[in-house]
């Protein structure tokens, strides 16, 4: 029944999927940590990244699309530009406003983005250029294999995650971002510009979320509206990780990725041990979210105030 090679296979792709979710989850946690805002447009921002490659690299909209890898690189660059632009045009206007208004703004933005994408491409799956889909598989240990596009996407995701961790841990700017997130006033009297810190947080967050969307689409050979749902799925990851913890968001994302893969393989369709029904793979992380909220409301790594007597 449970065959070891298959189990390994699924575990590997679960971790891979988790690494992809991690970018979007970390983008979410970063913004929550620095500004207190829950960004409910994460799924749509990821989708903009995902469809960016379709826009630039296929004939869907443009009559002369860019070569596949140029389109990929250009979309990643555009993710960063999107981060800067959204901060300048939208989020900067709300500094000092109640957090709730900004949360509502993210909901509105999400609706706008998703409507815009539906208008341009319809709500259908759009395949990526063949150069980005490979179609081959790579052999792993013990007979397990992994799809090449998926492996490349996961590797890229891990590179971004590592860079982000190093940035927070080893650069002065990284320390400042974390400091401003813990105590805004204490940072201000040391000369930290809160406006600039918030701008940087939004830029990084939106950029890695868009990149996450691109890689997520690449791992499944194209962009689809299912990516919108990651906005909800990563919520499970982030709550599990403690909402304001960036390493926590990473670990939470891996757990959610694993749950989803196990769920859809062992509890759904022809391969199931117990067939619960179609779509259970995506439901499992959300069931898990409910359990986490009930059992450990501050998550695994959420800020526990250090009390001293």
């Amino acid at each position, binding site marked *: 029944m449970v065959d070891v090679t298959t189990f390994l296979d699924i575990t590997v792709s679960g971790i891979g999927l988790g690494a992809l979710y991690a970018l979007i989850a970390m983008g979410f946690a970063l913004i929550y940590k620095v500004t207190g805002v829950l960004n409910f447009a994460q799924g749509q921002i990821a989708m903009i990244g995902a469809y960016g490659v379709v826009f630039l690299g296929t004939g869907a909209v443009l009559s002369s699309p860019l070569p596949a890898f140029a389109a990929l690189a250009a979309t990643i660059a555009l993710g960063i530009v999107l981060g800067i632009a959204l901060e300048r045009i939208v989020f900067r206007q709300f500094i000092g406003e109640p957090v709730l208004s900004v949360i509502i703004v993210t909901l509105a933005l999400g609706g706008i983005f998703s409507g815009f994408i539906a208008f341009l491409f319809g709500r259908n799956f759009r395949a990526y250029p063949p150069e980005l889909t490979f179609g081959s598989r790579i052999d792993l240990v013990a007979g397990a294999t992994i799809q090449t596009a998926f492996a490349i996407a996961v590797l890229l995701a891990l590179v971004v995650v590592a860079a982000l961790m190093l940035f927070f841990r080893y650069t002065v700017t990284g320390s400042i971002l974390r400091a401003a997130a813990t105590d805004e006033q204490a940072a201000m009297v*040391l*000369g930290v510009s809160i406006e600039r810190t918030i701008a940087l947080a939004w830029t990084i967050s939106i950029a890695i979320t868009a990149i996450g969307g691109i890689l997520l689409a690449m791992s499944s050979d194209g962009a689809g509206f299912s990516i919108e749902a990651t906005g909800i799925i990563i919520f499970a990851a982030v709550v599990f990780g403690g909402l304001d913890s960036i390493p926590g968001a990473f670990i939470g994302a891996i757990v959610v990725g694993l749950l989803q893969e196990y769920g859809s393989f062992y509890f759904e369709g022809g391969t199931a041990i117990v067939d619960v029904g179609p779509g259970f793979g995506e439901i499992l992380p959300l069931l898990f979210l409910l359990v986490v909220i009930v059992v450990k409301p501050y998550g695994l790594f959420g800020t526990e105030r250090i009390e001293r007597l």
Partner: protein
Amino acid sequence: MTTSERASTGGSASQQPPVVELDNVEIVYDRHFLAVQGVSMEVQESDIVALLGPNGAGKSTVLKMISGIGRSERGEVTRGSVSYKGEDVTNYGANEMVDRGITHILEGRRVFEDLTVEENLRCGLYRDGRRFRFDVEDYRIAFEYFPQLEEILDLKAGYASGGQQQMLVVARALIHRPELLLLDEPSLGLAPKLVRDIFETLVEINREEDITMIIADQNAKRTLEIADYGYVMENGQVELHDPAAELMEREEIKEFYLGTSGDESRYRDIRHYKIRKRWT
């Protein structure tokens, strides 16, 4: 010039303008909560000035409007003026005052808890929202005065002891190379021995680095011991002010010392004493 001479000369005798000058200042929070009223104050270059008074007297409010951080709490100077080295800086924001060389150590030992001690120190390297210098020399000043910190560089600041946290916030401010240092309740909640150590170090810093200081504290005795000049506040107003040495000799202050220092009812006695004195 000795410290007492310098303090006794007052503002009028010196050539350059005082470092800080408050002229009949009124401070209001949230547009209608009146916290400070008619406060005038002068801080001379290189002095340590004590700002004393019970809880709620308005000490922190005065410091917050000098450093500008009070603006982020919806505080506003609604009457009078605040000047820094002769320049009118009334209602300037924190970033503008940081640029002018003012560092404010906020009440309550506000270390960044989930950052290590070293990462906390690094945060002293910012000015104008940008890193303004960064090399080993900048840390040396911190370890010179607080060698203990060097041993706990990798400790999460939240797990450091109260004394270590107090050292850390002072060290972090020093790395910032201020010209004026504002300290809010540096002795609060520390054991007497630690308070003595910290205050001794503050005097050293004041002498060696030539940093002007305003220290708001409820421990009047310790603070006046190291100060050149002192202001006693109550109910948002300045009740008494004098050179520290003279202030310590004043009857009402001596009377205050009779009780346990920091006891608020003792401050109320000052007022009664003043009223009594006016009538006799």
